[in-house]
């Protein structure tokens, strides 16, 4: 079972590296949006520092949302979803492999770029480790939950903005707990509660999302 998930991950990573340009999209998007905030809000160090946790996480959410479109769109277009469906292995495991590959492609670069951009937004340095932890716990949830929306909309034309509409309510809890964890770290308060909630969310998503994604794909395939 596990070997087949690894096979799917390996193929998707190979596919992603064949189109190296697309790999940079989430990172570029992040840098652009993060530089807009000081221009739009105010360059004042103290003021921006207080806003930084929220700004950082809102941008992470939007970057995840933008990259969600690409998980299944290509597979619907070239018909490989049907070939996955006809494989002996459980469909939700294969789909889990695809989502894991998507997280590695879009989530992991976030682990690198987000702390850097946080410094640009004058986020106090002592909050960086906690920010890093929230990204590590949060982005997989974004990928898993976003993939449910993608599974429901990629098969149809004009699914773009609809994906955002479907996925936004599912992202709200992640945004709340993640950004409050970072702002608690800025104030030096305890963050274990916030991170525990994110961890619980991750486990819930890991358990429930693959089945929901599998069922959604079967429906939009028909």
């Amino acid at each position, binding site marked *: 079972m596990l*070997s*087949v998930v690894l*096979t*799917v991950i390996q*193929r998707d990573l*190979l*596919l992603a590296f*064949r*189109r190296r340009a697309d790999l940079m999209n989430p990172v570029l998007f992040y840098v652009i949006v993060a530089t807009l905030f000081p221009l739009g809000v105010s360059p004042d160090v103290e003021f921006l520092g207080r806003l930084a946790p929220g700004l950082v996480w809102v941008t992470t959410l939007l970057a995840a949302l933008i990259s969600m479109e690409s998980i299944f769109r*290509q597979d619907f*277009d*070239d*018909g*490989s979803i*049907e*070939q*996955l*469906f*006809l*494989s*002996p*292995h459980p469909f939700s495991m*294969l789909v889990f492999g695809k989502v894991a590959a998507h997280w590695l492609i879009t989530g992991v670069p976030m682990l690198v770029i987000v702390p850097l951009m946080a410094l640009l937004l004058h986020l106090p340095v002592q909050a960086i480790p906690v920010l890093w932890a929230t990204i590590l716990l949060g982005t997989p949830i974004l990928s898993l939950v976003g993939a449910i929306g993608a599974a429901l909309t990629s098969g149809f034309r004009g699914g773009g903005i609809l994906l955002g509409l479907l996925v936004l309510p599912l992202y709200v809890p992640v945004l709340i707990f993640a950004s409050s964890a970072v702002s608690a770290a800025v104030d030096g308060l305890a963050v274990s509660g916030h991170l525990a909630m994110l961890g619980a969310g991750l486990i819930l998503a890991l358990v429930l999302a693959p089945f929901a994604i599998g069922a959604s794909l079967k429906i939009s*395939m*028909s």
Partner: protein
Amino acid sequence: MPIQEPRVLKAQDLKCSRGGTELFSDLGFSVVSGESLVVKGGNGSGKTSLLRILCGFNHPAEGKVTWCSQSIYGHDEYRQQVSYVGHQSGVKPDLTVLENLDFMQRLAGASSQESEIKEAVRFVGLFRQRNMMTGKLSAGQKRRLALAKLQLQQRIVWVLDEPLTALDKEFIGEFEQVLKNHLDNHGILVVTTHRELKIPEYRVKRVNLSPSC
């Protein structure tokens, strides 16, 4: 191909509709191992929808499809015995011919021997293009790649949607031989085609979806 008791793919009073208009209804047939079902019908008569129903992708509006008298929906064993070649190639354009076939073998759980894949690629005449990106192949070559997949997968039920399109003359002859071998090995074939297939008549059952065509 392991030879067991004859397998039966049966459909009973199938009804399919798309966007509110009815495509076909009260359709029933049964295909036994070693037989092929040729589906005829004009464009938009629901041929592809029927094939997709038989693969378990779509649900029919009414009626049911059974494999060895068990419904095919949620029937894992049936799903593993179906090979589907649709209009889309089902392969990744950014992977090479060999990579696509290798992934497909490992996906099916079979340990992919290099030799087996090379043999299948040589048979469909894509040996020279084996390291080319699938996206750069011509329509005919992509079709050959999909047919190479059939050879490799060795599954019982072949569901082929217009397999002969974009294929050149002499390859069609070879391909028809492959279909005959498949039927000799107690395989089942469901196919839509505009061109007559040279398969012995006693093995062929026909379904005509829209008499008007």
